[in-house]
């Protein structure tokens, strides 16, 4: 849940600007392969390997941002393209091999501690901390308010002096950075660098964002809602699993949940107009 939670923070930022990111899961997978392969096969200092893995994800974020702003391509198409590019690079670079025997720093976020009778991973703590940090930036800072304004009415924002391109590039870059952090948390949880990882990351994160009440039309929503959305989707799935419901029904129910959430958004929008 921590991994989807962090991916969903980045997804929230992008959806707030009326965009969408289909590439986040594959970008994250690419990040995991870069950091694990550099640390294990090239014997690089694990911290440098982690930094380079995160930088690779950041690079994809910047690429998405530039394509959306400079070439003015729709985010859907841009991130569909980078999804495939990241997917291909992941498989080429990893030779389709899973990378194991990772050094301790790389798997740190999979460690757990006990608090109030439950076991908590450091990754989950990080996900919550990043959510709160993002909430602070979005609601209290100039940059955050510009994200909302740019998503809500880009022309008004531009005419009012907001540098909307810069806002968009910043949003996609920040999202990329977050995917890199998600990659690190994922490696901690699974203990390996897996080229097959993250394939449902895009849909899971979009589900969490939408169930959390953020509008796909941009400018409305909250990253705290996304945290709730992540928990709802996660608990739902976990609960269904514990009840012995077959995995395929979980997909069915998640699908219905997404459509319901978008329908509620759409209807409330129509009633406002």
């Amino acid at each position, binding site marked *: 849940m921590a991994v989807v939670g962090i991916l969903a923070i980045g997804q929230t930022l992008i959806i707030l600007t009326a965009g969408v990111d289909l590439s986040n899961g594959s970008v994250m997978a690419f990040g995991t392969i870069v950091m694990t392969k550099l640390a294990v096969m090239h014997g690089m200092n694990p911290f440098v390997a982690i930094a380079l893995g995160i930088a690779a994800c950041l690079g994809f974020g910047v690429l998405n941002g530039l394509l959306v702003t400079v070439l003015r391509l729709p985010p859907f198409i841009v991130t569909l393209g980078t999804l495939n590019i990241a997917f291909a690079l992941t498989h080429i670079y990893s030779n389709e091999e899973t990378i194991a025997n990772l050094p301790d720093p790389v798997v740190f976020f999979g460690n757990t501690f006990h608090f109030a009778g439950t076991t908590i991973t450091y990754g989950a703590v990080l996900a919550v901390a990043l959510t709160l940090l993002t909430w602070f930036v979005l609601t209290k*800072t*100039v940059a955050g308010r510009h994200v909302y*304004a740019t998503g809500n009415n880009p022309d*008004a924002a531009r005419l009012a002096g907001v540098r909307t391109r810069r806002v968009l590039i910043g949003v996609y870059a920040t999202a990329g950075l977050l995917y890199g952090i998600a990659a690190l948390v994922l490696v901690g949880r699974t203990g390996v660098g897996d080229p097959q990882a993250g394939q449902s990351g895009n849909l899971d994160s979009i589900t969490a964002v939408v169930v959390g009440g953020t509008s796909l039309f941009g400018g409305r929503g909250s990253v705290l809602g996304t945290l709730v959305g992540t928990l709802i989707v996660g608990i739902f799935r976990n609960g269904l699993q514990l009840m012995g419901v077959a995995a395929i029904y979980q997909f069915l129910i998640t699908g219905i949940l997404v459509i319901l959430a978008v329908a509620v958004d759409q209807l409330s929008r129509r009633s406002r107009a």
Partner: protein
Amino acid sequence: MSAVEARVPVLEARGLVKRYGVVTALDGADFDLFAGEIVAVIGDNGAGKSTLIKALSGAIEPDRGEILLNGTPVHFRNPLEARRNGIETVYQDLALAPALDIAENLFLGREVRRRDIIGTLLRVTDRPRMLREARAHIADLKINVRSMKQPVETLSGGQRQGVAVARAAAFASRVVIMDEPTAALGVRESGMVLDLIRTVRARGTPVVLISHNMPQVFEIADRLHVMRLGRRVATITPASHTMTEAVALMTGASSFQGKEG
């Protein structure tokens, strides 16, 4: 009116030319606006009103000619530069962000930051101060809204235009430009916006206004700048000419020159 003639216009344009391919939108257009007045720019469709206004507000750069602010030549490459020189524009399509509240819209692009270290370093906004100042600006123009925390989308068309005008008036140190400020509004709300425009003038900021609505223009403007084929063909006043004469000038049916007040 010789006293007026001797004064330096707040905003002046001389011989503006703007071509789009083979179309000449402005063909040597002149313009002037003096302190304390409302000037309406009127003209038929395609006469160059919008292009003139865009040049004055920095939305386009004219190919030739010059714009003077208090007698000093200025050159605006974008609307931001015009704004920095004290020229605020209210755009026709109500350039507000509907999901943001009134205070946020008033300060959009000009957010007030906290004066302490987190304000400087993290660019954290000073929300209480913006709410307070927004309340003062809105009260100043007697716009009737309940709370500064109300999203703009919950307001009526007239109230929204009020917020847009308040934003322009709050930050315009020299000129407020309005592009069809009442086009989307009903009769009662139009009246409200016209009152607002008078209030802005009374507070010392001259206003340039584009409108198609002749009765409205004659009601509110001190002077009418008549455009035809990319040029100013006359400057008239509601006292010197009738509406029919103004329309004749716009369409070219009459070519007599405007007499000053």
